[in-house]
């Protein structure tokens, strides 16, 4: 009896039973609907053909289903399908495991890098900035999220979709570069406050502490100015500035390509069209002016 229960609960049995029930059910339904598909005696030939079309379509679909069921019903196919079913929980588990591992790995990286922010900024030194944090963000984005945007697109809307993805990708990259650049701009503020923190005890020991708040502000602004000057002359700053500018330009170009698609669809001249026109106009004007000068000088 237990053996019987096990047999009836097995996937092979359940799949076979479901297929049989489904085929029987839809076969019976077809027979029931046949009178509604039948044509009335008064129907014109065209009406007849119109009504016969759904029935033909239905019959064809049922035939395909039955063929498929009979194919699946062979012991070999059934066996393969059932094996796949057995593997399903395993696959799901593997997928979840990989996903979690990836997520934890990312989180670990983020935490590690984020922990470094501000941990090694020394006064008046901008040579070894903790830009790794932003590089790590960039790497994570490029290796993980960004790749989805670079998946080749297919079909009629392929090029449009690619341009949308490109604009999103470039915007994200610009965000990272801009964040690094803004962080660099913030560093002198942090460093100047640290210097102020060191200066105040010195002034106190010398008995030179002022009662006027403005004096402290003036001192701070001078220190801040000095820090900015040091930063601005550092190669790291120039690099970050150029990268921020380059990424902004990449994004603007990608966005412009996207806008161009929209303008084309609306039959509005694009920036490129206008530039070509402007160039022609520019060359023509130049030629006319030269000729005008020649005529005047005669």
């Amino acid at each position, binding site marked *: 009896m237990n053996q019987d229960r096990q047999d009836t609960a097995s996937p092979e049995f359940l799949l076979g039973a479901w297929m049989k029930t489904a085929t029987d059910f839809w076969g019976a339904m077809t027979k029931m609907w046949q009178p509604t598909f039948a044509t009335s005696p008064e129907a014109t030939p065209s009406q007849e053909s119109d009504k016969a079309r759904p029935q033909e379509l239905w019959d064809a679909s049922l035939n395909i289903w039955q063929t498929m069921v009979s194919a699946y019903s062979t012991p070999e196919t059934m066996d393969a399908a059932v094996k796949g079913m057995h593997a399903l929980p395993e696959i799901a588990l593997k997928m979840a495991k990989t996903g979690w591992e990836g997520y934890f790995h990312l989180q670990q990286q983020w935490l590690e890098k984020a922990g470094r922010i501000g941990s090694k900024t020394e006064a008046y030194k901008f040579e070894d900035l903790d830009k790794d944090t932003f590089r790590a963000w960039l790497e994570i984005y490029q290796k993980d999220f960004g790749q989805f945007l670079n998946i080749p697109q297919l079909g009629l809307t392929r090029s449009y979709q690619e341009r949308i993805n490109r604009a999103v990708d470039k915007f994200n990259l610009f965000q990272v570069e801009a964040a690094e650049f803004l962080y660099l701009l913030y560093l002198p503020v942090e460093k100047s406050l640290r210097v102020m923190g060191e200066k105040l005890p010195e002034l106190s020991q010398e008995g030179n502490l002022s009662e006027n708040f403005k004096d402290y502000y003036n001192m701070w602004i001078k220190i801040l100015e000095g820090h*900015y000057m040091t930063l*601005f002359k550092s190669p790291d700053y120039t690099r970050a500035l150029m990268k921020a500018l380059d990424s902004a330009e990449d994004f603007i170009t990608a966005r412009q390509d996207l806008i161009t698609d929209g303008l084309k669809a609306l039959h509005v001249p694009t920036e490129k069209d206008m530039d070509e026109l402007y160039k022609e106009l520019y060359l023509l004007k130049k030629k006319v002016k030269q000729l005008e000068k020649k005529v005047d000088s005669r």
Partner: protein
Amino acid sequence: MSQFKIPVDRILAKLAEDAERAQTMTKKASDVLLGPLDTDIATTPGEVVYQEDRLTLRHYEPIVEDGPRTPLLIVYALINRETMLDLQPGRSVVQNLLKEGIDLYMIEWGYPTRKDRYLTIDDHVNGYMDNVVDFIRQRHNLPKINLMGVCMGGTFSVIYAAHHPEKVQNLITTVTPTHFDTDKGLLHIWFKDIDVDRTVETFGNMPGDLLNVVFLLLNPARLMIDKYVGFLENIDNKVFVENFVRMEKWIFDSPDVPGETFRQFIKDCYQKNLLIQNKMEVGGTRVDLKKITMPLLNIYGRFDHLVPPEACELLTSKVGSKDTADICLDTGHIGIYVSSKCQKELSPKIARWLKEREEMKPKTSTPKSRAKKPTPKKSKASAKASSRKKKKVAK
């Protein structure tokens, strides 16, 4: 370990005092800000005498008669606007020059649009500038005029004087970069690495706002924090507020720079430093500084952070002229035109220098045009433009 002591109690007492003062100040400030403010800039009356595309030439009549006879043309930079030279009554280079009896013309480059992106340095120098110089020469019936350049406009004037020495009587360059291979100014450092091709391809014209961001970044502590702290401290002072707003108006009134001009300026000047080496080509012709044989007065600021003295001072030793002079004023890039001290120095020095040169040369030219008001000889095009556009305006 000894604990340092800040006199917090005294600071707080001071802050309390300040708070009372702040209350009074706020009331006054609201009266100032909500009341009528005179913040107009460039109010000296001038006459538009020539227009070509986006360019406008304005003529200012001298206030006294004993100035130099040859008119002076001022060529401002393409970055920011020439209104800085006429910021407010009593603090105006234009007015001061007029008081010195100088017959003054000034080019207003206007606001380039997308259609101007293909205009090159050649178009500006050998096109617009040359047309303007010809117009003034014909108007005054003179073979040569005096030329004064400001910053990038000075660089244009140097190129012009090298290409057309026969049309320039005296050349004055103010805060004019000609030697770009220096690491003293931050712009010189940053522009060396900029991918200018990419920038121009992206933006078409170089956006004025983007340039403004770059200028603000030259000294954020002063330009983005301290300046506005100073404004808040003086917010109840009407005159201060008016002057501050005038300056703000000028600073953030930034036309875009035509793309091709910007590209060539950055590549040939900032990145390759061709001008001072006599290797720069404009309109297919090499700019030979040795052809600058007219007297040259080179003025710059000792504390200029945009165009440091190192970028200016080489010029006088590279030109062909034997009559050259360098004047280094103790001020910065803008201070040379707007600081009270320089206001007293700059214009009289320029006028004196021009007068001295005029007294030295044989008097072959016709008398002063402004005294006789002759009918200007114009080319057909300029005559048409003049009659079409001529109008007396107070900007």
